[in-house]
């Protein structure tokens, strides 16, 4: 093959062409870059100028001049967008062509102007030394990679895995066995929650001996002196104290010991331990726990539930009627516990110092989480019936660790747990569509359940003398004889409650509907003894004390009726302020949370 001559001028020319093309390419590159930047900076399709002008046009629709302006500008900006794209594209093609020219020129030069290989000078044979050095360098590189990786791993080491682990375990029905066996004695002799009949045995019986096993939680006698949770001891709506006031007037101040403003709203009810009254309040941004001095009504301390790991940044959207702080707090006399609509759970000591706090995961709850907390021994019981994952769990009061956790196959509910001693064991009674269920309060094992409730369950159950009463609006009122195989004693759906929970003595069941009708049934047969319309919306749950039933309607008027088979109104005492919260009663006093204020009633 004949090799063509390589005339110098040709090569020179080619070099020049290549150089010019390269220059051209660089200029094109810059132009394209500028164009691209412009397009991205200005974003003509979202031109704010056009937007504001259209807004103006919206308020001034007859301005023909403005309309013209909008149209022109809109056209221009769209044109700018497409032209700019066309320019970039054309620029790209030109760039490619110029690069192609460079490549052709250089390749031709290379072809014509083949350099003869210059013999490289013979180096000292460094082959073996090179290999040694190479080994070392590879080693160094490896070390560097490990180092960089570890730095990365360290820097980015976040809590994701743990958080996920927690989040996942929340959804499963594992019971953390380790803690359960450590903290809970196998004997389930109960001591919290019961009926009046078994009160004595509970207070004095073998329960005391087991007290010594577990230090740091109140005895039943201690509990019933106080009002430690929603609807009182065990959450059953029964107060075992005496001298409960019957007559007062919030407006005139009659029998009102003090009245104290509550900083943040909340539909939770006060809980009382000795000389302290606790409640919580929250709005979308702040969640607080308040401790009132029972004597003076002064706020002793305010604790904020903030900076809690896993707490969602945004408060959940809740129904106005539920609010951000619907669940009532609870206390075991050592600590107070509060939960909020966003799933933040906080434990404080009696001085307002935070002991622990955690987030249970944003409640998937369309009205807002409202199940109140309950205490049992040194455990905090949380009913967490959320969409997709319903469970009930017990957390160690001291640490917040999950002691046991039981999954529930139920719909979302708004009812609260009730702890009742049923003769042999302490049962935890929960209601949610589709069933009322009982769990061993000590270890969370399900004892029995009965399909007898449906809908969006708000009322909690009532327990008396071996019978559990459950009710929900658009469902039915059911009396369940408990035992190994629970039996439906009777049912009725004439009067149903939406919010207030029923309350029962051994003989009677008292029910208040949310539209204000109070009904009394025979607890064993279901025979209706009386009904009475109070004609006002009622959200607060009735409380039974000293043979009377305290029914407070939404306007704040307390209707006190005899707990008897005939209707007999004792007295009606107005608060002078609306209220939807269940009153708390201790010896000689009633604490009522009004819409804005906390009232202490007594003499």
């Amino acid at each position, binding site marked *: 093959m004949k090799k063509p001559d390589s005339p110098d001028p040709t090569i020179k020319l080619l070099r020049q062409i290549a150089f010019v093309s390269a220059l051209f390419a660089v200029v094109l590159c810059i132009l394209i870059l500028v164009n691209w930047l412009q397009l991205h900076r200005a974003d003509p399709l979202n031109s704010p100028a056009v937007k504001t002008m259209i807004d103006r046009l919206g308020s001034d629709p007859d301005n023909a001049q403005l309309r013209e302006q909008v149209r022109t500008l809109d056209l221009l900006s769209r044109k700018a967008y497409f032209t700019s794209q066309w320019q970039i594209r054309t620029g790209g093609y030109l760039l490619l062509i110029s690069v192609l020219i460079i490549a052709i020129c250089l390749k031709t030069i290379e072809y014509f102007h083949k350099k003869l290989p210059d013999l490289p000078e013979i180096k000292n044979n460094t082959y073996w030394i090179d290999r040694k050095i190479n080994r070392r360098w590879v080693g160094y590189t490896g070390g560097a990679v490990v180092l960089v990786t570890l730095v990365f*791993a360290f820097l980015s*080491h976040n809590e994701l895995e743990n958080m996920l682990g927690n989040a996942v375990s929340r959804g499963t029905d594992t019971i953390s066995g380790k803690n359960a066996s450590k903290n809970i004695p196998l004997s389930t002799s109960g001591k919290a929650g019961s009926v009046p009949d078994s009160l004595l045995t509970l207070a004095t019986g073998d329960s005391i001996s087991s007290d010594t096993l577990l230090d740091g939680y109140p005895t039943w006698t201690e509990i019933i002196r106080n009002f430690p949770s929603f609807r009182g001891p065990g959450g059953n709506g029964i107060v075992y104290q005496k001298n409960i006031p019957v007559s007062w007037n919030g407006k005139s101040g009659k029998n009102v010991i003090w009245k104290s403003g509550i900083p943040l709203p909340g539909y939770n009810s006060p809980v009382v331990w000795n000389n302290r009254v606790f409640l919580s309040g929250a709005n979308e941004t702040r969640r607080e726990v308040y401790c009132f001095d029972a004597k003076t009504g002064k706020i002793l301390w305010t604790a904020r539930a903030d900076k809690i790991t896993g707490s969602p940044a945004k408060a959940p959207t809740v129904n106005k009627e539920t609010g951000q702080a619907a669940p009532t707090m609870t206390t075991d006399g050592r600590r107070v516990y509060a939960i909020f609509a966003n799933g933040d759970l906080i434990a404080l000591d009696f001085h307002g110092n935070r002991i622990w706090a955690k987030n249970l995961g*944003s409640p998937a709850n369309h009205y807002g989480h409202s199940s109140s907390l309950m205490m049992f021994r040194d455990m905090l019981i949380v009913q967490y019936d959320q969409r997709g994952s319903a469970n009930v769990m017990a957390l160690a009061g001291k640490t917040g660790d999950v002691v046991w956790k039981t999954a529930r196959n139920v719909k979302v509910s708004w009812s609260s747990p009730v702890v009742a001693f049923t003769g042999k064991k302490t049962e935890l009674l929960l209601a949610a569509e589709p069933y009322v269920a009982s769990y061993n309060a000590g270890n969370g094992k399900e004892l029995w359940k009965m399909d007898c409730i449906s809908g969006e369950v708000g009322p909690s159950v009532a327990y008396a003398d071996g019978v559990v009463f459950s009710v929900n609006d658009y469902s039915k009122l059911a009396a369940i004889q408990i035992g190994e195989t629970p039996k439906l004693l009777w049912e009725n759906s004439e009067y149903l409650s939406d919010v207030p929970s029923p309350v029962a003595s051994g003989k009677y069941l008292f029910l208040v509907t949310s539209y204000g009708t109070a009904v009394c049934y025979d607890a064993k047969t279901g025979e209706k003894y009386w009904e009475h319309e109070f004609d006002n919306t009622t959200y607060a749950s009735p409380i039974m004390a000293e043979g009377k039933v305290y029914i407070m309607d939404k306007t704040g008027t307390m209707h006190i009726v005899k707990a008897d088979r005939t209707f007999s109104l004792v007295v009606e005492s107005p608060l002078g302020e609306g209220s939807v919260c269940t009153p708390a009663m201790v010896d000689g006093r009633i604490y009522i949370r009004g819409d804005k204020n906390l009232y202490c009633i007594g003499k």
Partner: protein
Amino acid sequence: MVFAVQRFPKPEFETGYLQPGTLLPSPRAEILAAMDVAILVLALSVISWIVLKKRSRKGVFWMSLFSLIYFGFYREGCVCSIGSIQNITLALFDHTFILPLTVIAFFIIPLIFTLFFGRTFCAGVCPFGALQDLVAFRPQKLGSRLNAVLGMVPYIYLGLAILYAATGTDFIICRYDPFVGIFRFNASFGMFVFAGILLISGIFIARPYCRFLCPYGVLLNWVSRFSRRHITITPAECIQCRLCEDSCPYDAIDIPVTTKDPENRKIRVKKLIWISLLIPFLTFAGGWTGSRLHITLAGVNSKVRLAEEILTPAAGQGQPESLGLTAYKSSGKAAEEVYSEASEILDRFYNGGWILGGFIGLVFGWVIAERMLSKWHTDYIPNKGACYSCARCVDFCPVKTDLSEIKHEKT
């Protein structure tokens, strides 16, 4: 959302308006995909013939130009053999993933050809190689040190690509595909910058992507070491003229090794034993390191990111909700489902981190050990692993024909 029966009457047009049909163009005909495979086989056969029989640099050049135009500019890059690694991996791990036969062909066929003829695929079929070969105007020697160190990158890249493909996270080779934008005259800005950088550095460092990034190159490298035939610099006996010594732009010519290792044998054996004991340790250390990194690694997975976002919502109240979160909310999926999915993926990444790290550790150990084994050879020979069979060196060899074939030469 419910889009159940959307039954409704069509408007009754009185003016004789005819409702147009909804026309959608159909994708590329399937027969063309089969044609691609045929052309791949054909191109590989031709290039192998050019390299091994014709020994013509010019032939290689024109063949690579053809491939650049066909596989690059006409076929616009996808699917390519490099990217097919990920499809194969995903198909192995995810039984529901459907693997088109062409993808299998694009993965397997070049490997088989390499097994018989060396890396002729790189020389004249791969459009990426062709493009870079074209711009290698001023190739510089990098020195064995840099070659050794930078040569580790493809292993890491391959490992990561397999990890992400196996977990169904992403195809990162395709994500950082540098040249596909050029083939399509259309890409995101970042991709163009990527291509620009590679091509500019490719003027001085020949084939930077092939040598220091290409994950498929790792496989080809290893397969090629055991190839049945391979390009030789000289068709006959090497006359030790040293003309070819600097001819390879890829530093892939092994110069003769005729001296013995100056270190004494005892020490060498000791070192070799030591390093072979070190390899399991390196593997383990790498694995451990990799496992430490698994959360960072998993952060690439969108499901993990979503779970993280749900768990730790952005601090700023005023910030608009991220699109991922919006989509999650409108999907009506339970958070628990997202969490358990994410934690499952996280587990996979933990195991994957061990395997990836272990693999990288093993490779480092092997590369060190390999540089201890002596390779006695007197001729200038192409390194079978690293050589791209571009046939540049052939042009430099003064020995043009095998003496035994001289009778047939008629020029």
